[in-house]
């Protein structure tokens, strides 16, 4: 029997596979497809202080091996998420819950993180300083070491009970420096990556496809870049990394962990195949046997 379990900041995960924020609703919707208790954890849709409609449609476009989205953080606001959505999820689901917190100002991050810290339904707080789809929004915090460190520090000052992960943007020059700055400011872990700023043009209409003009690219197309970033961040920090970007098979999970991830998130793959996470989890043991891996924990950073 192989051992798929991993541990993040003292919290045990039965396996490292976590559906990524924004691609899995509030989790309970997927209970229609399968028993979501097989997941390592669930990361919920990005949450802001106030309810947000998000961007106009079209919000979705396609690229080779990838999807562009410009959802723009549609969500019912932190209060409704904590009071209505998470109880619905917790009712049927008994593994860790990661709250993904987004915002437009330091104050907003702090406010929402404080609320999430109080909630008994949240196990880990993931601070999304990397959303490319809102103007004057999160991404600008995530593209310089200084601002990333500043948000981290502010959040860490008020969060007392839960690990704080900072989710980084790949639209940055030196991802390792940003991660290091977050670590120094007290982050308990790093999630990377969010999506790449990208666009498509409708040739017939000669106009951008997305109403927002640009959107975020994710999916298998970005896997080799995400892997490189996880590799670099692993060499720069000592806190755990959640590897994200283009993961769609058990082999991808293993490759990402060899690069340095302690756990992984699966985003776009859920949209193409609602069973994606379940299938990856089911495929993990046989993949591990194929490569002679007894315990997933033992391979973290093993490619270095």
């Amino acid at each position, binding site marked *: 029997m192989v051992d798929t379990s991993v541990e993040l900041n003292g919290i045990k995960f039965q396996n490292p596979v976590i559906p990524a924020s*924004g*691609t*899995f*609703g509030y989790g309970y*919707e*997927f209970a*229609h*497809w399968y028993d979501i208790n097989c997941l390592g954890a669930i990361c919920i*849709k990005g949450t802001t202080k106030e309810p947000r*409609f*998000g961007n106009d*449609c*079209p*919000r*979705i*476009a*396609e*690229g*080779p*091996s*990838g*999807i562009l*989205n410009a*959802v723009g953080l*549609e969500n019912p606001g932190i209060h409704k998420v904590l009071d209505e959505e998470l109880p619905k999820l917790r009712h049927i689901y008994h593994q860790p819950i990661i709250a993904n917190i987004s915002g437009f100002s330091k104050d907003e991050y702090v406010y929402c993180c404080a609320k999430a810290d109080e909630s008994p339904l949240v196990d880990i707080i993931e601070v999304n300083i990397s959303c490319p789809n809102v103007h004057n929004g999160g991404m600008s915090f995530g593209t310089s070491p200084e601002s990333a460190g500043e948000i981290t520090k502010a959040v860490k000052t008020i969060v007392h009970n839960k690990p704080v992960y900072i989710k980084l943007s790949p639209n940055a020059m030196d991802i390792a420096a940003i991660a290091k700055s977050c670590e120094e400011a007290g982050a308990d872990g790093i999630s990377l990556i969010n999506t790449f700023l990208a666009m498509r043009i409708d040739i017939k209409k000669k106009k951008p*496809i997305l109403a927002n003009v640009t959107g975020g690219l994710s*999916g*298998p197309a970005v896997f080799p870049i995400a892997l490189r970033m996880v590799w670099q961040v692993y060499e720069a920090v000592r806190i755990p990394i959640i590897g994200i970007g283009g993961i769609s098979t058990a082999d991808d999970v293993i490759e990402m962990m060899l690069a340095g991830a302690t756990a992984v998130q699966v985003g*776009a793959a*859920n*949209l*193409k*195949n*609602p*069973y994606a996470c379940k299938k990856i989890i089911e495929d993990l043991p046989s993949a591990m046997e194929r490569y002679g891996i007894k315990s997933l924990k033992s391979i973290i950073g093993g490619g270095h």
Partner: protein
Amino acid sequence: MKKELFEIISNDIAAENIFKMELSGDTSAITAPGQFINIELQGYFLRRPFSVCDWEDYKLTIYYKVVGKGTAEMSCMKPCESLDVLIGLGNGYNLAASGDRPLLIGGGAGIPPLFGLAKRLIEERKQPEVILGFNTYMEMFLVEEFQNLGIKTTITTADGSHGTKGFVTDAMADKNYSYIYTCGPEAMLKAVYEKSISSGEFSFEERMGCGFGACMGCTCRTKYGNKRICKDGPVLRKEEIIW
């Protein structure tokens, strides 16, 4: 909602740029006309959504217009090839609201779901009537099938090459109806909305990330809050629509 493998039974041209595809597989997830399926195509990341035109146990039919790379590739597929399909997606039309004399209005690639709807309305002993709008004669499809149901079928073509010259709304004026069911390009939906004298249901299209409610890729504003076209739609009631 289910994920199923379907096998292509036939895939033939039905009109200019319009193909009819018959698929065999488990259709038990379909609960109402107006629902859609989402087809995985090799080499494309996103699935492609198509309305179910008609279905029975283990068989369903779609009609699709070739508009881009994915549909062009579909048009080359051969019988016996299999497709990975999400089925039973969306809310579909509410038959119970129809009244006795519902009017069905379809435009171009929006016509298919109205066929399955018409059949089921007839089964429920209603007397549906249908207006079908096309650009031109060469693009007409499904007309005979509607006529074979024995219901009154009015054709409009934008260029006047067949039926009434003009738009579907030009054929609405003299109709007497209890309810409207419609599907077609957004401009048509809006025109029908404005012209219609009864309540009704309008089926929308949007680019989709998932097709089953997970990604918020297709949200629109309605009078009763945000709705996802793929899950809370594609059919919206007239009363809730915000243009």
